C-alpha cells in the first residue's frame, strides 16, 4: 500500500513539473523543472524494482544531459520566449485536436492491453540484486553494448565537428 502511494505521489510530482516545463517561457527554468521531473521519475523507477536504472537516470539524464542543455542555454544566452501578437490560430487548433485525439487513442490502447495476458516470469529471489542484470547485459546483449560504445564515439565526433567554429582546428 505505501509503495503504491509513494509511486503515485512521485508520478504526480513528475507530471506536475513536466507541465511546468512545457508552459514556462524561460528555457532555463524549463530545464530545471524537467530536472525535478526526472528525479521524481527516478524515485518511481526505484519503486518499480529498477534501482540501477534509477541511478543511471539521475547520473546520465538529470546529471549530464540536462547539464549539457543548461550549458548551451547559458553560454548562448538564449532569451525567454515572447508571446507573439498575430499568434498561430490554425496551428494551435490543429495541434490541440491532434493531441486530444492521440491521448484518447493512447488511453483506449492501454485500457485494452493494460492487463497483459502473458504469464509473468519467475519471481526474482532478490529484486535488488544487480548481478543477474549485469550477467544478462554482458552475455546476451554484449553485441548491443559494443555497438552502443561505437555509437557514442560517432556522436562525440559528430558533435565536435558540428559545433566548432569555422576555420579553427
Amino acid at each position, binding site marked *: 500500500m505505501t509503495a503504491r502511494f509513494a*509511486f503515485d505521489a512521485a508520478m504526480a510530482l513528475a507530471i506536475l513539473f*513536466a507541465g511546468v516545463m512545457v508552459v514556462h517561457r524561460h528555457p532555463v527554468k524549463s530545464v530545471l523543472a*524537467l530536472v525535478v521531473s526526472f528525479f521524481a521519475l527516478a524515485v518511481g523507477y526505484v*519503486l518499480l524494482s529498477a534501482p540501477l536504472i534509477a541511478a543511471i537516470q539521475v547520473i546520465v539524464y538529470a546529471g549530464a544531459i540536462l547539464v549539457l*542543455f543548461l550549458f548551451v542555454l547559458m553560454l548562448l544566452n538564449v532569451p525567454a520566449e515572447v508571446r507573439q501578437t498575430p499568434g498561430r490560430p490554425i496551428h494551435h487548433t490543429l495541434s490541440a485536436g491532434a*493531441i486530444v485525439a*492521440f491521448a484518447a487513442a493512447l488511453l483506449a490502447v*492501454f485500457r485494452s492491453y493494460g492487463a497483459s495476458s502473458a504469464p509473468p516470469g519467475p519471481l526474482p529471489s532478490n529484486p535488488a540484486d544487480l548481478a543477474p542484470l549485469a550477467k544478462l547485459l554482458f552475455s546476451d546483449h554484449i553485441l548491443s553494448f559494443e555497438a552502443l560504445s561505437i555509437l557514442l564515439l560517432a556522436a562525440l565526433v559528430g558533435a565536435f565537428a558540428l559545433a566548432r567554429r569555422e576555420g579553427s582546428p
Partner: protein
Amino acid sequence: MTPNGIPIGDVLLASAALFTIGLAGALLRRNAISIFLSIELMMNAANLAILGYASALHSLEGQIVVFFVIAIAAAEAAVGLAIFVALFRHTETIDVNKINLLKW
C-alpha cells in the same frame, strides 16, 4: 501487478500523461530547445512504460532496453545540441518559424 503492489494501470496512466504533455510541448512551443526538451520527456514516458511492464512480468530484459535507450538519448542530445549551437551561431534566432530557408 508489480512485486511492490503497484498496479500496471497506474504506471501506464502516468506514462500516457507524460507522453501527452511532451507531445503538447513539441507541437506548441516555438523555441527549438523547448521542443527538444519535450522530445526527451516523451522518451522518458516510454521508458516508464517499459519499466512498468518489466516489473509486472518480472523480466530483466526491460531494464536492459531502458539502459540502452538512456544511452542513445545521451548521444542524441549531444548531437542535437551541437546542431542547435551551429544554427544559433548562423541565424541568431531560436524561433523555429524563422528557420525556413529550405521551405519551398
